[in-house]
């Protein structure tokens, strides 16, 4: 089959756009894992609830940007609550127990969303309605804006980790929790903050991605799978690795969608995962031996 060049270019842009969102969600998960060995199974549900908070705020205020901010804050607070109620008692136990507990949380949140919002999918309107001409397509500016916002958020997180006082504390705690504590870093509050930040990133991604999809209670399931693939390919706890892996996998899926249906294009990312496990079981960008 002959694929015209324009289509490949369009799919490249599509791939980068979803890749940036995926990177935002995955780096929240991997940040949390890196610092406290917690695999947050409910991360996809935080993404889903973020989208719903966006829907509600949008309906109440009519402002997309307000929706974005409120979803980030609400989901960050929810994340903090989940951390305090369920995860803090489990710290220091086997990481597997955290998967189990957060799986329970994900069941609760998912069915809560089904109960609260019903099975009918919701929509978020595009905040920027302009289009530009990309070959024969009217390409919405909004998609480009999403990629830019996601990149800006990721950049902000990176800068915060690099230069902010709390950011330095977070990195110190990730490296050695006991030593950090001995140096007077308030480790319990650092952990709480990291969980809130990771959750907030998921919430923000939910609103950002909202206009590109139908929002329903089960959307988190798709995303948690993709996020798991990304973090395994990128290397668990490796922030830069998960960003690169997210874009790489989204691009591959976008290209695969040229030939097969999007539902089948997922198989490409499975293949990437299999190859990664065969040749680099610690992740494509791993630095430390697991």
């Amino acid at each position: 089959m002959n694929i015209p060049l324009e289509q490949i270019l369009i799919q490249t842009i599509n791939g980068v756009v979803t890749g940036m969102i995926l990177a935002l969600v995955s780096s929240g998960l991997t940040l949390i894992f890196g610092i406290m060995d917690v695999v947050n199974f409910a991360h996809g549900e935080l993404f889903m609830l973020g989208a719903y908070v966006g829907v509600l705020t949008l309906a109440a205020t009519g402002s997309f940007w307000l929706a974005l901010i409120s979803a980030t804050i609400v989901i960050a607070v929810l994340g903090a609550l989940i951390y305090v109620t369920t995860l803090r008692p489990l710290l220091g136990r086997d990481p597997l127990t955290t998967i189990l507990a957060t799986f329970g949380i994900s069941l609760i949140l998912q069915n809560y969303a089904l109960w609260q919002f019903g099975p009918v999918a919701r929509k978020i309107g595009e905040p920027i309605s302009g289009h530009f001409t990309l070959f024969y397509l009217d390409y919405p500016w909004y998609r480009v804006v999403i990629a830019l916002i996601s990149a800006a958020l990721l950049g902000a997180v990176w800068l915060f980790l690099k230069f902010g006082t709390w950011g330095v504390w977070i990195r110190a705690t990730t490296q050695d929790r006991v030593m950090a504590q001995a140096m007077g870093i308030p480790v319990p509050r650092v952990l709480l903050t990291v969980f809130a930040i990771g959750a907030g990133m998921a919430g923000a991604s939910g609103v950002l991605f909202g206009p590109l999809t139908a929002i329903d209670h089960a959307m988190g399931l798709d995303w948690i799978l993709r996020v798991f693939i990304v973090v395994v390919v990128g290397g668990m706890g490796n922030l830069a690795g998960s960003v690169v892996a997210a874009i790489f996998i989204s691009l591959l899926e976008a290209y695969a969608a040229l030939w097969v249906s999007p539902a089948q294009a997922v198989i490409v990312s499975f293949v990437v995962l299999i190859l990664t496990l065969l040749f680099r079981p610690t992740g494509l960008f791993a630095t430390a031996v697991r």
Partner: protein
Amino acid sequence: MSRGSTLVFWLGFAVVVGLLAAAPLVLPAFWARLLSEILIWGLLAMSSDLLIGYTGLVSFGHSAFFGLGMYGAAAALLAVSPPSIWLALLFGLIAAAAAAGFVAFFSTRLRDIYFAITTLIFSQIFYVVIFTWTAVTGGENGLTFTRPPLALPGLFQLRLSPANLQWLVLAIVVMSYLLLRRITQSPFGMVLQSIRENEARTRAIGYPVERYKIVAVMLSGLFAGLAGVLYALQNEFAAPDFVFFLVSGETVIYNVVGGIGTLVGPIVGAAFFLLLREALSRFFTEFYLIPVGVIFVLIVIFMPQGLLGFARRWLNQ
């Protein structure tokens, strides 16, 4: 085990099996059917206990083995005529074991959470294939068929009425339990438990740990597939929903709640949750999973004796 406790075990075993065998005769149809559903889910959970409780590997991929058991049985019943229950069993087990071999080959390279995540992702491969390959698997609608009789050609033929089917399920689950119990007490099972307790040491003693793990996953997948075949026979369909990873999650829940590393525990866990669902769904309709989730999280946090295996492993590190 001393002679006395062995006697107690077999006495208890005989009483429980006797009660379960009498159930289809006394219980109303609805409860008898629920009982046999509990046994089937219990078998699935028990198969996963071989990994969680005895090898220390938490599998989030058992839905794939269960589902392939269902689809294997359905394929045999639809493709071969006259339909034979033995072929359904054979096809289901082969499909489940093949899937388990595939998953095991990749996931046993990893440990702990990495094992859990990769089994989850790999089981989703089967889900995507089954869901999108509509021509063969019926896609979203799945496959339906009629239940074949239990027959040995030329010898006898038995129509599987609900009661007969329930006895068949009971017989297979009881045999599986005895087999799994024998496996966990065999030298092979001892090696699995030593992998759980201290993998590095087991390797140092000279056991090929990876090979043991692969065989363990395949054995576990085989029993999960058996549960899938039974479920397909009971409900006369195979559907992609049962390949989705939420089923794997439920399997893990049954294990953790009932107590891992006991084989009986997972069945108790399945019974607990299916009965809870029955009770709660009268008040909460389809949202019964909210209280189920709450109870599960509370058990994970406050009942570490349900997490005995993990706890023991954690202390030994």
